[in-house]
Structure formats: structure tokens, C-alpha cells
């Protein structure tokens, strides 16, 4: 969006033409003021050049594109919450069905995709689906724009075919940690992604392979932590983040996340430790199986993985911040 906004604009236009939509919205987080300026400018230029608006490229088709700014709500990345927000409402998650493709924005059928998908559309059309399909492995075809971040020497976005291992990405592309200390954990797929220990770094970037280890590729974000990380604090943060960003509609997420923070605190403080560990597992089950959307449903991923692979950090003996 910041360096090649036209790729997204083109992708959305293609998608719009494909489904017969004549209005597209880019729902952009307000935390990205730079992207906001660039996208607006790009849309303005594309419209002036006849690539957007009425009768685009003399095709007798119209496609209008508008950037709508979020207002500080992570949950609005969830597709139904995003639609509510675009409608000018509280970003509360909708129960599905109906799926947005049937009844979406303003009650109309709506395609909701992420930037990566729409960004890939133009090159797929240009080079043919076969070419795109040739990349990747198993059922995960094509490429993934990996965002390498955190404590890493060379961070940034790398577009790779599925199948490369996490270790290759972090070590070969990233060059190890920024701090120069050993890597201890890698979080893959955003704040709701699992923390992976060294034993799992050889997992290839493939949806099925990640699902098999109860992790996810998600949006392709990779965050590297060195050996100073306190994984109990990270687990606690996952719950805390969920508590801060939950829309509050469903009970497992609304109350569960807050209780999660409290239970983890009791565990690390050695209060009735064994029972609280059981309770935390129960809570993770409840959130995972009972939540209305992925926010509450996936918050247990980082928590459980930290608890499983970095249990020593929950002993209450490791030095913790906060």
C-alpha cells in the first residue's frame, strides 16, 4: 500500500469487475497515516487516468474506490466487524451465516479479502493461473508476502513461494537476531499466532503443515524473539491484547480474556498453581471452541504454545518484566 498502491488498486478493480461490484472500499487502520496519504493520492491519480471511476478504460464498467479509515479497533480486521465499521457502526462481530458474500455491506453481497490476496490478482491475471499455481507446495499454492519483523537483523517484506521453512526465512533472509543473541521463539501469523520453539522452525510455510502443529501462517507476519524474552509475559500479553481489543460481544472473549490475564498472573505467582494451570487450559478450550470469531478463538494459540513449549517461564522463577 505504501510502495506500490497501484497493485492493490488494480487487484481490487479486477475483483470488482469479476463480481460485478462498482464500489470498493479499502478499510485502512488509522495507525497507518503514511499509507493513508499514499493510497488517497494513488486513487486520485488512477481516477484521473481513467483507471477508476465511471467507464473505466472505456470498458462501460464503473468502479469507484474509497479509503475508509478505521479508528483504533483491531477487531475491525475481522470481516464482519469490518463491515459493521464501514457501515458507520460499532465494530461488533456479526454471527455467520449469512456470509458476507450473501449479505454483506449495507445488506448487499460483498467480497471481503485481504490486501495480499487482492495484491496478487493482477500478476495472476497477467501471468496466468498456472504460473501462479506452480509456486508453492501441497494445497498451499502461489506466493506469500512474508513480513519479517521483530528482533531480526534484516526485516521487511519478502514475497516467497509457499514451502520454504521458517528457519530459512529467519536465518537466510533475516540474518538472525538484531541483538545478535540466539533466537528463542518465533511468532507466526500475527498477535493470535502461536509461538514456535526451535524444534518447529523447520516446518515449511504451508497452511496444512502449520495447522498440524497447531500454529498458523495467518497474514504471514513473523516476529522473532531473542533469548531475553519472557514467554509467560508474552502469553499474558496475548490475553491482555484480546481483552483490550475484544469487541465484547461473546462471553468467552469478553470475560475470558480478562480472566486469562488474572489466571496467568496467579500461575506465575505460584498461587494454587496446579489448579490454575488446569483452569487456564479449560479457559483456552472455552475460548477456542466457544468464541464467536477468530479473535477469541485464536487468542489461546499464543497462550497454549507458550505454555507448552516454554513452560519454564511460567514457573514464577524466571525474571519477568511488568
Amino acid at each position, binding site marked *: 500500500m505504501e510502495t506500490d498502491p497501484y497493485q492493490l488498486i488494480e487487484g481490487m478493480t479486477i475483483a470488482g469487475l469479476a463480481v460485478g461490484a462498482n464500489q470498493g472500499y479499502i478499510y485502512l487502520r488509522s495507525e497507518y497515516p503514511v499509507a493513508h496519504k499514499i493510497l488517497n493520492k494513488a486513487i486520485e491519480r488512477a481516477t484521473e487516468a481513467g483507471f477508476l471511476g465511471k467507464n473505466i478504460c472505456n470498458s462501460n464498467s464503473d468502479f469507484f474506490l474509497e479509503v475508509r479509515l478505521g479508528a483504533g*479497533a483491531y*477487531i475491525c480486521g475481522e470481516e464482519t466487524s469490518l463491515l459493521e465499521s464501514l457501515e458507520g457502526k*460499532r465494530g*461488533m462481530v456479526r*454471527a*455467520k*451465516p449469512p456470509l458476507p458474500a450473501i449479505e454483506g455491506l449495507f445488506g448487499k453481497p460483498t467480497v471481503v479479502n485481504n490486501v495480499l490476496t487482492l495484491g496478487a490478482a493482477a500478476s495472476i491475471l497477467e501471468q496466468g493461473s498456472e504460473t501462479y499455481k506452480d509456486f508453492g507446495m501441497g494445497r498451499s499454492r502461489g506466493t506469500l508476502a512474508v513480513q519479517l519483523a521483530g528482533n531480526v537483523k534484516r526485516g521487511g517484506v519478502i514475497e516467497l513461494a509457499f514451502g520454504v521453512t521458517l528457519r530459512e526465512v529467519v536465518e537466510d533472509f533475516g540474518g538472525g537476531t538484531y541483538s545478535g543473541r540466539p533466537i528463542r521463539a518465533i511468532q507466526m501469523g500475527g498477535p493470535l499466532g502461536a509461538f514456535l520453539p526451535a524444534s518447529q522452525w523447520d516446518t515449511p510455510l504451508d497452511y496444512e503443515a502449520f495447522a498440524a502443529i497447531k500454529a498458523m501462517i495467518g497474514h504471514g507476519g513473523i516476529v522473532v524473539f531473542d533469548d531475553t524474552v519472557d514467554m509467560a509475559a508474552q502469553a499474558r500479553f496475548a490475553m491482555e491484547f484480546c*481483552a*483490550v*481489543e*475484544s*469487541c*465484547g*460481544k*461473546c*462471553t*468467552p472473549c*469478553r*470475560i*475470558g*480474556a*480478562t*480472566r486469562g490475564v*488474572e*489466571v496467568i498472573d496467579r500461575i506465575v505467582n505460584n498461587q494454587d498453581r496446579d*489448579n490454575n494451570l488446569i*483452569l487456564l487450559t*479449560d*479457559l483456552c*478450550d*472455552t475460548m477456542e*471452541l*466457544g*468464541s*464467536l470469531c477468530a479473535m477469541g478463538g485464536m487468542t489461546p494459540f499464543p497462550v497454549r504454545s507458550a505454555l507448552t513449549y516454554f513452560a519454564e517461564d511460567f514457573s514464577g522463577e524466571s525474571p519477568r518484566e511488568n
Partner: protein
Amino acid sequence: MLEFYEPQPDFGTPQSDSETLVTLTIDGISVTVPEGTSVMRAASEGGVKIPRLCATDSLKSFGSCRICLVEIEGRRGFPASCTTTVTEGMEVRTQSSEIGKLRRNVMELYISDHPLDCLTCPTNGDCELQDTAGEVGLRAVRYGFEGENHLVAEKDESNPYFTFDPSKCILCSRCVRACEEVQGTFALTIDGRGFDSKVSAGQAESFMESECVSCGACVDACPTATLTEKSIIELGKPEHSVVTTCAYCGVGCSFKAEMKGNEVVRMTPYKDGKANEGHACVKGRFAFGYTTHKDRITKPMIRESIDDPWREVSWDEAVSYTAERFKAIQAKYGRISIGAISSSRCTNEEVYLVQKMVRTGFGNNNIDTCARVCHSPTGFGLKTTLGESAGTQTFASVEKADVVIVMGANPTEAHPVFASRLKRRLREGAKLIVIDPRQIELVRSPHIVADYHLPVRPGTNVTVLNALAHVIVNEGLQAHDYIAERCETADFEKWVQFIADERHSPEHTEQFSGVPAADLRAAARLYATGGNGAIFYGLGVTEHSQGSTAVMGIANLAMLTGNLGRDGVGVNPLRGQNNVQGSCDMGSFPHELPGYRHVSNVATRQLFEREWGVTLDSEPGLRIPNMFDAAIDGDFKGLYCQGEDIAQSDPNTHHVEAALKAIECLVVQDIFLNETAKFAHVFLPGATFLEKDGTFTNAERRISRVRKTMPPLSGKADWEGTMALANALGCNMHYNHPSEIMDEIAKLTPTFSGVSYKKLDELGSIQWPCNDHTPAGTPIMHVDEFVRGKGFFAITEYVPTEERANRKFPLLLTTGRILSQYNVGAQTRRTSNSQWHAEDTLEIHPHDAEERGINHGDWVGIQSRVGQTVLHADVTSRVKPGVVYTTFHHPVSGANVITTDNSDWATNCPEYKVTAVQISKVTAPSSWQARQKSFDTQQLQLLEKARH
């Protein structure tokens, strides 16, 4: 219908109206339900209860509580049964150890932020949270109670009727959704998000400061003690309940009177009541306290003159005293020197008895009813054009309407439960045309915008109706085939000649009505071409010198566009009081016997004469205004007035007071010493709707049972009082129960011949006509043909009212109602409803106010040709320049001191809606108000003497 108290069954999600059926198995039980039904509802219908908290069948499924999760063969995870719809062959399991654990764990989270005070909680034993915790088997809360919580959240006690205790809230949003989906006010929201979420009225303010209209839908929807009636907090859970019908407006809502012994603990809207389907308003839901108010008079009283103190006497003495006085008056002044006025607040049976007493005991036809002053033009106009004096539809029919015209009615204030239905339909996309001088709430309010608001100048309705018809005819938009098939074609041709004339064009009528021609044309096209068109109208149509003409104009429009005789269309008078329709049906007019049959008709008369054993007068009696005139002329000397406060509600108060003072024996039967009773010689204590059996008939012709919840405080229900008086006059009336009166009505009235209490108990309610052809009643009238045969297009010439603005009286005053108060306020003023509306004010446009140096809140004098009163000014652009507006709920306001004697040409319904006035800034109440105050004080002292 007396039953032990039990909440009504809740299927969890609304009913699907699909005609396609789907069969599935739930826990091995085969269930067949309409497509679109939720798994939860299907389970309920199959006898399987799935625990839930955020679901209730009055609201769309929401999916937030996550208690109702189930397993479905072939689907991953645990779908919520409320948001999952059934599919053919689906196999659902509602119980398993995994589900059980999940539900218990979710419940554990709820209870970790909930006070542990079940035993002392006001809804102990009537709490869905408590029940559900039991159902899921919660035994411990492992999180403890030390964590973050909302237990110290402050209570909001601002609403007089219910408490909001957020510490008990589980954030199911049922209240918020009820306010939106059921009531349509959108006064509630969730403030914040995540764990900090909390229910908020308005902008995180108290309920009373917010947009809340206190309909109670949120209280009904709340599954916990968060929103609880104060009466329940004070008195505890009810032990039995009685289904009855509300005694306020013409919507006729069904309620469960929830009782402890003879005390009403609360009134809850009855889901199976077809008029309201489980919804209510602030009056019916909460304002029942008047029934036991200390002002109730429970003993008969008599006095020689209105300057004498009252004397409490026995029923026997009061009744024989009255009979003797009446007989003496008749002996002295003639048979037609006495009469009676019956009440649209009383039951059908009571109204029937009053007219029977007049026609048999008084020996004349001097019987009229308060419908005279509200909807008599409806009776005349609809009978003339369609053949029946009643609205054509059910309320539910509006759910099929595509274009709705609301004319001279303000449903959100006066018919709130119907308004909620209407608003729901409008939110679904139906179009709306409002014809009203004021910008009523329906013109613009949250999620509602009228497509056209035609701000008609008071008194010119007929020009607007004619212009609408003119556009339809001249643009060829009429329903040609429908008219040819169903209407009198020769009369139609004559009418077309009349209406097509240029004098009815919007461009020409604009000068009278003030309605922009372009808007009017567009509205006409919309109504004629927008699909099902339904017209709802109120007293803003009838209470005019051309009230009857306007009603006929409305019927013409509906016939012209083929909008009669099916679902979603029709002509629908919104009746003011609970039993206006019924009181008219029961023969309360001086020219008509029950069933709208003229007294001059020999066969009809003979039918009644045989049954009643007397000879009936074949000539019409006096209408209410005629009675007043005759009283002043010295020809009318005795009046029995039941449940009607003519001194306050009838126009030109000076004139009415003069008439009342001229009456030698005025008998008032009421629950309070009302304004009229202050002029009375005999006071017979009335009974409230809670104290008697009977039936009310609402605006959709729906006859519903009124059931006794407690014995009459005075020892006699109103029908028993009337019967005693009738017998003292020599009639031979012996009824043991109102059902016997209904049996007599059914015997004598073809439209009621199939009605009986037994059938009412079976069906819940019946819309007349109910006879051999339509044994279950008639939801929609004129389906195949009009009652009169062919529809008649009446000529509706515009005749300007004499009440015109001029230099001396440059503004036009019109009147209306407000939500919290009811009519003359006798009931609602004796409840906490006055907290919303403690006084009547005068609405005046900022421009008119500024010209007169009037500021918001100033005392203003309102001078008409007949009188003056003083109110506080409410400077607002709800009214347009040139128009002022007030309500008439408080006696001291004297709204009728300024209204004139003008009345409808055909029915003498007073022209309440147009009074030319001048407004000026003043410093004190008017001389009438001062006199009223001292008279009031004097009369209350005379009452006190009776009580000691």
C-alpha cells in the same frame, strides 16, 4: 384464564414464515419446521430445551452468549443453535460431555462477574441466568471473585417504574436489541467494548435523561435482575396471573395482570395478544397505579345542589334517589328531557346496557357516546362509502404495506404499540407519507424518515385529499379494473368529473393548504403506484368541520387505487380510547341501535322490541352538543354520564359549564371526582378495568376479554350499577354475568352473532363480523365485495371552516396527545407518568414567538373567539409558522376554554383541531383558570365533608 404465575414459553428465536418445511433430527427426535427456523427454535418446538441467555423469541438471533452451542453431524466445532438455521436431514446433538463442559465453563465466566446474592435478589426464582446456571450444572467458580468485575457499578433508579442495576448485567444486549427491534426507539447502546462494555441509556446518562420512552421492552427482555420493575423489587414475585386487555388507547393490547392476591404486582404484555404480540407502552405497562389511588371514590354520594356538601349513601339509596329525580323531571319536562352519555372506556356490555336503559327505561333515544367527539365522522364516512363503520384491517397487516399514509395521527405518542410495528415496517423499506401540520416523530426520528411530509394548514385536509385524488385521476394512475368491478360506476364517473376539475389541482389547492404542489404530486404518485398502500388516520382527520368529508376522501383514495380488501392495504382509523369502536358498535348513537341499524327501521325495532319487551322510539335522540344546547335552552334537565369527563373534554368549556349548571339532575359514574362530577348531584362510583369482566373492541374490530382481577372497590362493576339504576326506573334487567349481556348482543346483532365468551376464551380474540359465515371472525374486510355492495365515491367539496385566521386571531391552534398522558389525564395524572409531562405547554414557532417577544418557558395567553387560557411557551420548529399546538391532559390548561362550537357538518364532531387564536406574553394564569382553581378547591372541600 386465571393461571398460576409462569413465564410465557420462549422459543428462543422468532418464528419463520416460510411455507417450505424442513425435517431434521434433534437428539434423535424428528422435527419438522419451516425453512429459516433456527436449530434452537426447532428444538423448542420438538420439546428439547437448549440452554441460552442472549436468545429470546421476540428478537433476532444474536449469537453472543455461547451457551446454546450444539454439535451438528458433519460440521466442525460447536455452532450456536440460535444463529444456525435448519437444513433438511440435519442431525443435531444438544447434549454431550463436551457441550456440557463448554456450557459450564462459559457460565463460570459469567458468574465470575456476577453478585452472589440470588437469595435476596428481586428476581430470585424468575431469572434466566439462575435457571441456566442450574441447567448447565455450574457448581464452582474457579476464577474466584477477586478479579476485575462490575460488582460496584452504580444503580440507576431514575425511571419511576424500573431499576437498572448494571452489576447484574451479562451484556446479552437483549435490552438494546429490544429497544431497537421491538420498540424502535434506539435509546440504548453498549458503551465501550470488551470487558469494559456496559449498557448505556443515551449518552451514558440516566434512563430518565435519555431518549428512553419507558415502554418496558428492555425490562421484558432482560434475563436477569438488571432491569427490574420497582413493583417486583418492592412486592416480590407474583403468584397468579390473569390475561386481560389494556384500558388505555385503541390499540387494545393484551396484558397479563400478574397478581399477589388482589394486588397487581405488574402488568406484562401478553405474547399471544394479537394486537400487541408481546409489546407495550409506558401507559399500559406501568401506569396502572391509578386503580388504587387514594382519590378513588368507592361509595355512592348524593347532594341537592352543587353548592352542597356530598353525602355518602348506599347504592340502593343513590339509585332510587336518581330514579325518582329522573322520573320527576320527565313528568315535569317531558319524556325527552333526560338522556345519557356512555363511555368508550367502559366495556361493550356496559355500553350496551346504558343504551338499553335509555331506550327502554328513559323511553327515548337520547343516548350518545364520547365517540361523538372523536370518531363519529369515521362511522359516517366509512358507512357511506364502504358500507361499514369500521377500519378495514388488522394491525399485523401493516407488515405487508409498501406505502403508508399517516394522516392526522401521531402514532408514536397516541398509539405507541402500533407505531412500533409501523416503524419496523418502515425500517424494512416501506415508504411513508405524513400529512400533518406538525413535524411529528414519524417525519424524522432515528432510522425513520418520511418520504413526504405534507404540512397541511389546519382545516384544509379536504383540499389535500382532493388534490391527491386529482393527481391520480388526471395522470391516469387509478386502478381501472378494480373500480369497474367493485364500485358504483355511474357515481364514479360523476366523481371523476368533480375531482378532475382544476380547482382540485395541487397547484390550486396549495394556496389553501400550504402544501407544496410538487410534493403533493409526488406523494400521490407514490401512493398510487408504490404497491400495497395503507392509510392510517386519526383525530386530525375527524375533528374538523369537514371531518366526515375527509374520511370519505380517504375512502375514495383507497378505492381509487384498489387499496382495499387484502393484506397490507386499507383504511384504518386509529381510535383514541380503548373501546371507541365497541361503544359505537353497541348502539351508542342516538339514531342507531346496536350494529349500526337506524332507529327508524321497523324490522330492526321490532327485533329489539320483542327481546326487550317495550316499544321503541323511532326518532333519533339528541347528540351530545344538542344536549348541551337543549340544557341551556331549558329543555334538557337530567343526564346520566358514565365514565366520560365532558366538562374537560368537550369544546367551548364556558358553554359546557353553562349547560351542566342548567341540568337539574346530573349523575356521574366515574372512578374519580372528575371535572364533570364537580357539577353533579349524584355520584356513582365506577370500577376500573381490573375490577370487572367484559370485552373491549379495538381499532381493528378485535373483541378481547377484560377479566376481573379483583372485586370492585365500590361493590359493583359499572354494568351492575347501570343495571340497578335501570331496574329502579322500572326496567327488567337481570344479568348474572357480562357473558349473558354478550349473549343478548350476539342474539340481536348479525355482525356479532358468533361471539361468545366461550369462543373468546378459545380464540383469544375475535375480529367482527363474526357469524355463521365467518365463525373465527374477519381480520380483513371488504375482501370480495364491499359491505355496501358496490363502493361509493362520495363527492367531497372543500368548504373552508368558519374558524379562519385573521388580523385579530392570526394563528391556528391545533391539539394532540403526548405519550405519557392519556386523554384528559384522569388516570395517567395519578401515576408517575406525570414525571414525563407535568403540564401542557404551547408549541410555537420561533418566528411567531420572536414577533411577540416570547421566549421559551414564558407564560403566554392564548385568546380565541370564545375564551382565553394561559400556558408556558415551548418555542420549537416542530410547528410551522402560523400554527400553534398544545395537548389537553391537564384540567388547569383549559385547552377547551378556547376551542369553539364549530363541528363536523354531518356528525357534529367538534372542530378541536382548528381554533384561530392570538398569542401574547402574559404574567399570570387566565381568569378562567383562577375561577377553575377556586371552584376545584370548593368542590374538593365539599367532597372532604362526605368522607368525614
